């Protein structure tokens, strides 16, 4: 089977991946090493980081079997407890696995959908109590920049200081990836009794 290697553009595109190619060492003990000693480390270490990648240095992709690794699908990876190595995936399977893998996928460990009520409850009365849906009091908000500020404020409350991606070695539950949807922003506002107010009430 003949493989075409992507031209320069793709090599450049691939680079940012390394910043995150994922192990705690990057934050604790990543040594600054010359490219020579870096290369000598490769044989022993299982991870490596290239802070100053050189577009003419093709050693990065010199692994001889890269194009012969078995081609797997996302559903075959659903049993993996950590991201796979020495495999090949179609782009759609790579993305599918990154988002939906039951063990390390983005949606199963990171994503939280923004609920404007949760922010208010968290701030005002602690997290325990269940209140009826509040939403926003649209008719009391002055203009759209005031609305944006209020959304941002609640967003900040919800994300809290802990908000960040869960770095390896840190407690994943402390990380929240919050995103918002129109359904949440423009949701039903309940009267505290649990019933709707009448449209003209």
């Amino acid at each position: 089977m003949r493989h075409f290697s992507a031209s320069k553009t793709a090599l450049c595109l691939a680079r940012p991946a390394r910043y995150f190619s994922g192990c705690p060492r990057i934050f604790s003990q990543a040594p600054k090493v010359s490219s020579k000693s870096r290369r000598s480390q490769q044989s022993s270490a299982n991870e490596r980081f290239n802070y100053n990648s050189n577009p003419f240095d093709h050693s990065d992709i010199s692994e001889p079997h890269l194009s012969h690794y078995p081609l797997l699908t996302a559903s075959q990876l659903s049993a993996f407890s950590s991201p796979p190595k020495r495999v090949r995936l179609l782009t759609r399977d790579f993305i599918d696995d990154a988002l939906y893998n039951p063990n390390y996928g983005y949606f199963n460990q990171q994503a939280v959908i923004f609920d404007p009520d949760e922010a208010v409850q968290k701030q005002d009365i602690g997290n325990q109590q269940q209140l009826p849906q509040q939403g926003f009091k649209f008719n009391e908000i002055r203009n759209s920049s005031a609305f944006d500020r209020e959304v941002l404020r609640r967003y900040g409350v919800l994300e809290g200081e802990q908000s960040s991606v869960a770095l390896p070695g840190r407690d994943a539950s402390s990380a929240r990836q919050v995103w918002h949807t129109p359904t949440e922003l423009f949701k039903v506002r309940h009267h505290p009794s649990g019933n709707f107010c009448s449209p003209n009430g």
Partner: protein
Amino acid sequence: MHQPWYARAVARFLVEQHKQNATSNEPLLIYELGAGNGTLMRGVMDYLSLFEPEVYASTTYHIIEISNRLSELQRAKAGENHAGKVEVINQDVFAYNRAPETRRCFVLAFEVLDNLAHDLVRFTLDPQTDPVPLQASVSISSTGEFVELYEPVQDALIADFLRLREGLDLPPLHASWPSWMRQLRAAVPFSANLSRPYYIPTKLLKLLRGLNTSFPHHRLLLSDFSSLPDAIPGWNAPVVQTRYKGQTVACTTYLVSQGFFDIFFPTDFKLLQHLYGAVRRTWTSESGVEQQAELEVCSHGAFLERWGETSETRLRNGENPMLDHYQNAAFAYTR
């Protein structure tokens, strides 16, 4: 004084479509794919129970949800008021294996298409030959690094999509340059050997086919992003981003550590319209059952203007965030 907004517009749309078409005693069946916190379900069911009690009595609302955590949330949300009317099916929609729903039903998909994985193809730029599509695969090395490889299309789904795409009444995906321009380009030192990336919605094609099999008499209502800022380079390319210390960090490649980044795509609604029609007509000709194949598309604002109670989300100075926000979103529906 303060009334619902987004979910109620959806509910009003559903009720009107249902009343227009339904025979007497026909139940209102709703299937929502990927229901998030369950807020849309809650809003729709609340509206029906209060303002359309007769329709509500015949309504069942099913959610097909891949996430364990979210399906628990949705069950809790339904339990408050709508126990027995809402069913949460904790299953990947692509693994959905129940017997086909033979009754008429609505299928809702809100911000579902954006997180459907896409394939990547690039075309050869060889001046001597016509462009050939190449499929991308990602090879993950022993150290966890990613390398993109390109090979002639072998995957059946990619081949299917490209064949189907060629038959649509749309300009070609990759407009080939005339030979002399390709030769000129090839003469430039360091010129690219492959075209720009094309991110093609292969999982969307799979989803549309699955809808016809599992919900042959469905009517579809969906909303999604028609365009996205900060996308990575390429046609129909995704946004790859994460939140780090309260900041949104956007990347320039999808080749990022798995699980730490959201990867979401814009939806080409023109393509969606044609694709839906093509898949639906194929199914019709195979099954012999006449079905509506026309998918209508309108902007987010236009849909909410028509079906929403816009006065209720108006701010004091007259601005209306429900209409003005999400200008890069659109609705699509069959009647």
